[in-house]
Structures are given as structure tokens and as C-alpha cells.
């Protein structure tokens, strides 16, 4: 679970790092991924995990389009305005989905995922296991991308110092578009991976976005390794919390942790973000 | 009094400590014998210590007059009184006709005037000016120097952090030099300039 959380967190944190905006619609993008996987299976019989190959690029392009046509005009208005804009976007997408799909809960079932795996005596649902594996793979691929390719380096450079990046000849606008697309794709991919394991409903984005914030702040806004760590941390805290404290309070633990970090170490537990 | 020193010497930090924007981890800060260490900035402002910022911080979307009026509320309870005081200060500092303009519409020199006017509106005993001449051309520097001297004549103690040497040397009664967070010299401008420690701090080893 933590790895999937991490994926969501990474998407959000990249967008923040490059554009200094907190994308409140991020949760909806995860939702979009979930529904895409669901529809893919329902209408075309696509296996959700394989369908990532289809949906990730689609969501990437959607993200770039969103940036180009909607966000780019609003960015000059300032952080607050952009934040509110993404809030509006999130409501728009979530409610459009509500109108299209109705608020019923849906589930995605996989024929091969009924019996859980039992490594070391711990029961792990198959879907979650595959999801985890793929998430790790994707995160690693992303890490390589950011570290080894020119575009990846451009993204990191822009997120560290926008003006210097411009001076170095980096097309900051293109980087921003790519980053947003990447963030969307990551969120959507995480949604696809999560789809077989959770209930699907159009307003799930609300739940997701709050957790995404917790993760990103835990690890430091703008830091990718921080998001990974944050995701794993939250996933672990929640699982342990569910077992030892009580399953109803596990969400609360995350929030309390979140508040504590905000108050005492705003740059994140790993101190790599900006305060 | 002038406060000088190479970049990074800690001059702005001293200001921040004195005005309460940074808490001291040890030592004391006293105003006329009374300890003000660790107090919040607004409390220190009430005690009569005002400051300007190195990078001006106007209330951008408010009018010039409103900027100063807000500060004047510290000494005048009613709005009409505060506005009158603000108006007078604006005149004194050369911003007379520009009261209704938005703070963000002013040029740099006028914004610095606004910054000073606002600080003065709080009726301070001590005024800390943080590099007021940064970014000004020579004639503006001259105008700013005259402003500072006029403020001093009004009875306010001024502590000036600056890099523009001519101005500081001309208008300071006393100069304190900092380097790497410590005081390395203090005295009349003419003496300080000749102090070998000061020369070394600015020009490097062997220049003395």
C-alpha cells in the first residue's frame, strides 16, 4: 500500500516542485485512473494491470493538455489563485464523474486474484501484491528517468531553481507541461493499480487528496525521495495502526502525524523540502 | 550610528534580533536599560523601535496614505487623527502628492521613502534602517542621506546599515564594524576607516 501511496505522492510533489502549485485535483486524477481501469475491463475485457500501458500515456497527454489549456493561464495569478483553481477543477471532474457514473460503489474483480498469497505466513491479497510490484517498477523507472535523462534533469533543475534553469536555456514552460503530465500519469497509474483493491466511486478523490498531502508534507514538498519515504511511512503507520490501535483510528494517526510534522518540521521529516 | 561590515557579517541579523524577528539563543538585548530580548516584533515596535527592511515590504495593494495610516494607529487611536499624522509625514518625506497611489505603483526611491515614513509613523525613539540606499543612483543617495539627517534632527536615534561608504561616513556620528558575526571596531568614522582590522576585513590579508 505504501508503494502506491508513494506513487501518488511523487506525482503531487513533482508538480509542486516545478510549478510551486499544490494541485488539489490530484485526487481526481487517481479516480480517473481507477475508473479508466474499470471501464477498460468492463467494456473491453482489458486486464487492469496490463491496461496501465494504455492509460498511462493517455493520462499523460490529458495532463499536458490540462496544463496547456487551463492551468498555464492561471499561474501568473499567484499561488493562492492557482490553488483555488485546482480546487474548482477537482470539483468539476469529480462531479462530472458523478453525473456520468452515479455515486454507486463499484468493484473490479480479477479472476486470478481471489486467493491471497501467503509469503512468510502473512496474507497478502494478490491484487495488492501485483500492484505493489508494478508500483515499485514504475517508481524505479521514474527514478532512472529523473536521474539519467536530459528531460529528467531539466525537471529537477527547474524545481530547484526556476530562474537559473531559464538562464541555462531550459524551456521552463515545456518542463512544466511535462511535469504536470507526468504527475497526472502517475496519479492515474496509481489509480489503475489500486482499482482491483478498493471500492470505486467518483468522490474517492477527496479521500485520496488528503492522504496525498500528508505524504508529500511528511517527505518534504518538492522532494521525490521524500514522497517515496512519506508514502511508505504512511502506509506502514496505517497498517500498523489498524492492527495495534484500531482500524477506525488509523486515518487519524496519519493526520496527527501530519500536523506534528507541519508544526515542528515543516520541511519534512527528511528535511529536503522547503518551508 | 552606522553599522557596516562585509556581506554576511551579520548586520541584518542584528536588526532582526533587536526588532524581535529572530529570538536570541543567548545574551541580551536592551532598550534604555530594559530587556527586550525574545519579545514579539509588535511589542518591540510599541516600545519605540522601528525598522525598515532591506527589501522593501510595502502593503502593496493599499494606498500610500493607508500604508502610513496603519502604522500611525500605534500612536493615534482614531482614524482621522492617524490619517492626519500620516499626511504630515508623507509631506515631510517628499511623498506629499502621492498619497492616493497604490504602494506597488511607486518607483524604488519612493517606496523607500514610504518605508521610512511608515516606520516613523510609529513614533519611534530608535529607527533601524536596513540598507536604505541599496539600488539607488548617486543623486538619490544624496536625497536619502539628507532624509536620514533630517530624521536625526527630529530627535530620533538612527542606526544605519549600509554599504555605500561615502554616505555612512558622512552622516554617522559613530561607526561599528562587524565581521563574521563579531564586532571588530567601533568609533568615529575617521578612526574606523584607518583601523587595520577593518581594512583587512574588507580587502583581505596583507592590505593593511
Amino acid at each position, binding site marked *: 500500500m505504501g508503494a502506491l501511496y508513494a506513487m501518488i505522492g511523487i506525482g503531487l510533489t513533482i508538480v509542486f516542485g516545478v510549478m510551486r502549485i*499544490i494541485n488539489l485535483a490530484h485526487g481526481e486524477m487517481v479516480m480517473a485512473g481507477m475508473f479508466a481501469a474499470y471501464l477498460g475491463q468492463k467494456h473491453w475485457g482489458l486486464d487492469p494491470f496490463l491496461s496501465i500501458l494504455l492509460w498511462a500515456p493517455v493520462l499523460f497527454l490529458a495532463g499536458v493538455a490540462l496544463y496547456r489549456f487551463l492551468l498555464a*493561464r*492561471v499561474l501568473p*495569478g499567484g*499561488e493562492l489563485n*492557482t*490553488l*483555488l*483553481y485546482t*480546487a*474548482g*477543477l*477537482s*470539483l*468539476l*471532474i*469529480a*462531479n*462530472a464523474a*458523478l*453525473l456520468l457514473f*452515479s455515486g454507486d460503489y463499484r468493484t473490479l474483480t480479477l479472476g486470478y486474484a481471489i486467493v491471497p498469497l501467503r509469503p512468510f505466513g502473512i496474507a497478502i491479497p494478490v491484487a495488492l501484491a501485483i500492484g505493489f510490484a508494478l508500483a515499485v517498477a514504475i517508481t524505479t523507472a521514474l527514478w532512472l528517468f529523473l536521474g539519467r535523462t536530459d528531460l529528467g534533469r531539466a525537471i529537477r533543475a527547474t524545481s530547484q531553481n526556476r530562474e537559473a534553469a531559464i538562464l541555462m536555456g531550459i524551456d521552463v514552460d515545456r518542463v512544466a507541461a511535462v511535469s504536470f503530465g507526468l504527475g497526472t500519469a502517475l496519479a492515474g497509474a496509481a489509480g489503475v493499480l489500486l482499482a482491483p483493491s478498493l471500492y470505486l466511486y467518483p468522490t474517492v478523490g*477527496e479521500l485520496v487528496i*488528503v492522504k496525498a*498531502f*500528508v505524504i508529500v508534507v511528511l517527505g518534504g514538498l518538492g522532494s521525490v525521495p521524500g514522497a517515496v519515504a512519506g508514502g511508505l511511512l504512511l502506509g506502514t503507520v496505517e497498517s500498523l495502526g489498524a492492527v495495534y490501535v484500531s482500524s*477506525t*483510528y488509523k*486515518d*487519524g494517526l496519519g*493526520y496527527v502525524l*501530519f*500536523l506534528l510534522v*507541519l508544526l515542528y518540521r515543516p520541511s519534512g521529516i527528511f528535511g529536503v523540502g522547503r*518551508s | 550610528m552606522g553599522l557596516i561590515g562585509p556581506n554576511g557579517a551579520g548586520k541584518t541579523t542584528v536588526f532582526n534580533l533587536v526588532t524581535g*524577528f529572530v529570538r536570541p539563543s543567548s545574551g541580551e538585548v536592551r532598550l534604555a536599560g530594559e530587556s527586550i530580548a525574545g519579545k*514579539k*516584533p*509588535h*511589542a518591540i*515596535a*510599541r516600545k519605540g523601535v*522601528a*525598522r525598515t*527592511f532591506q527589501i522593501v*515590504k*510595502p*502593503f*502593496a495593494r*493599499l494606498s500610500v496614505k*493607508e500604508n502610513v*495610516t*496603519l*502604522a500611525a*494607529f*500605534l500612536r493615534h487611536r482614531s*482614524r482621522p487623527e492617524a490619517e492626519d499624522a500620516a499626511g504630515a509625514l508623507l509631506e515631510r518625506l517628499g511623498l506629499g502628492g502621492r498619497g492616493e497611489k497604490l504602494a506597488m505603483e511607486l518607483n524604488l526611491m519612493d517606496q523607500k521613502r514610504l518605508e521610512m515614513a*511608515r*516606520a516613523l*509613523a510609529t513614533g519611534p525613539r530608535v529607527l533601524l534602517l536596513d540598507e536604505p540606499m541599496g539600488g539607488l543612483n548617486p543623486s538619490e543617495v544624496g536625497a536619502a542621506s539628507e532624509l536620514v539627517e533630517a530624521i536625526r534632527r527630529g530627535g530620533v536615534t538612527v542606526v544605519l546599515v549600509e554599504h555605500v561608504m561615502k554616505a555612512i561616513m558622512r552622516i554617522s556620528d559613530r561607526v561599528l564594524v562587524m565581521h563574521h558575526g563579531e564586532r571588530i571596531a567601533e568609533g568615529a568614522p575617521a578612526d574606523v576607516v584607518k583601523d587595520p582590522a577593518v581594512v583587512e576585513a574588507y580587502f583581505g590579508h596583507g592590505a593593511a
Partner: protein
Amino acid sequence: MKGRGALAAGGVALLAAAGLPLVVHNSFVLHLCILVFLWATLGEAWNVLGGFAGQVSFGHAALFGLGAYATAILYLRAEVAPWWGIPLGGLAAAAVSVPTGLVAFRLRGPYFSLATLAVAELMKLVALNWEWATNGPTGFLITSLPPLHLLGLPMDWEAKAPFYLAALAMMGLAMGTVAALSSSRLGAYLVAIRENEDAAEAVGIDTVRAKVVTLALSGFLTGIAGGFYVLYFRYIDPDAVLNLGISMEMVFIAVVGGLGTVLGPLVGALCLTFAGETVRERFGAGHLIFYGLFMMLVIRFLPEGIWGRASKLIDRLSPKEARPGAPRG
């Protein structure tokens, strides 16, 4: 519009609005009006903190829910009549907001906003789990309201009119408060804090105290709105009154209408409620889609909000009207 003229105009408008139920008997229309008044109140309450002081809170649902639950608990468990319970609910919300504010205001900008979000979510969890206090997910259901006689007439709690008037009064109170704030010293201080908090501190403004007082005020107004909600809808549970959506709706109404203005939230509430409820009637769900759409349009094209832009236009036009010699009231 400034000064006495505006006050008089406002008073007249309120009185006129109060007379509406005598003429209009369509229950749906009255219901819509009640909703508009409720959301306008919430928008005004949020505006106090968000528009004037520039502190964007995503957690106001916590205050709303607190007021609602306080009123419900006081009525159902302690038999305190709702007309006392509502103000008490407001006070409870204000009281809780003070320590929360003292802590949260250490944070600035987006960090503050995120913290408010977390606080609200935590409160929802508490409400869901502290069943001994809040009945958990079951919530509270009010089956009957105590009798009340106003001016000798018994109140018919099944009709819309009493609620209409109560909501109108509540909104009037909220707007009055905001109007008073905007011409007060505290209001000016808040704007200074919004523009540049460091500079405000440097000129002697106690920013923490100003922010906390503002939050308490905002909390009180939000709390009484919560109490009203319980009275009108007669049912609350954590999801109805403590969810993120409510916080966001408040933000939207204030922003779409116009931050920092007195009439803005009313305009915002009018647009959004009418659009939203119409969708809800036709489609059953997804009514918030307009909120999202309006929000995006406003931010993109009218960042000061609909009324914000309108009032600027009016200001620009009015000096020309005043010039032909006639003095303005």
C-alpha cells in the same frame, strides 16, 4: 457604497426580504432562499478570515459541525431550546477555534491551509468514533421542535416562513458583522496582515491576536450557521456537517462572490445555490459541478469575484453621477 447610505439601503433590503414569505408561497423557492441565506452566512463567515485576513482555511466544516452538534446535543440531551442552543453552538465553535488558531497560525500560506484541512478531517473522525457524545455515524435526528410564540403568534415549524426569517436574520447578522469589520481598525489591520505580515508586525500590529480574534469571530458565525442547519434539516451526521465538501463550498462561495467584500458572499451564494440546486433537482447528484465550473471561470477571468469586479465598476461609474451637483446621501 459607503457610510450611512449603505446602511440604510441594507436595512430596507432586509425588511423587504422579510416580507417575501407573505407574497411567495412556493415552498421550493422559499427553501432555495433559505439555502442561499445559509450559504451566504457561511460565505461571510469564511470571508472574515479568508478575504480580509488572507488566511485560507479549508477546515471550516469543523466549526460548522461543531456548532451543529453542540446545538443538537444541548437540545436532545440537555433539553436546551435551540434558540439558546444556536448561539451557544456558535460560542462553542469560537471557543474551540481559539486554541486551534493559536497553534495553526504559526504556519503560513499553504501550510496553514493544509493544517486546517487536517484538523477538520480529524474532527470528523472524532465525531464518527466518539459515539458516547455524537452517536457516531448514526447522528442525531430531531423529531420535534419546542413550541415558540413570537409576537403572540405560534410558530408553525412545518412551514418554511419561520426558517426563512431566521435564516434572513442570521445572514443579516453576518453581513452586519462583516460591514462593521471592514470599517474598523481591526479590519484595516487584517488587510495589512494579508498584504505583508512581517511589515504589519514591524508597525506594531499584534498579528497573532488579530488573527485569533478574527478566527473566533469567523468561528462564531460558522457555528450559529451550523446550529441553524440542525434546526432546519433536523438531521445531522458526521458526513453531512463535517465533510471536506462543506469547507470547500464555503471557500467557493466567498471567492466566486468576491473576497473581502460585504455583498460578495451573497452574490456567490445566489449563483451557486441556484445553479446547484437546479442540477440537483434534475439529476440527483453532481450538483457541485457548477461550483467547480464557476470557480475556475472566476479565477481565470474575474479574480476579485463577481461582486468584487462589479463593485469596482460601480465605483468607477459613480463619481460621474455625483458631479452634477446632487450630494450623495
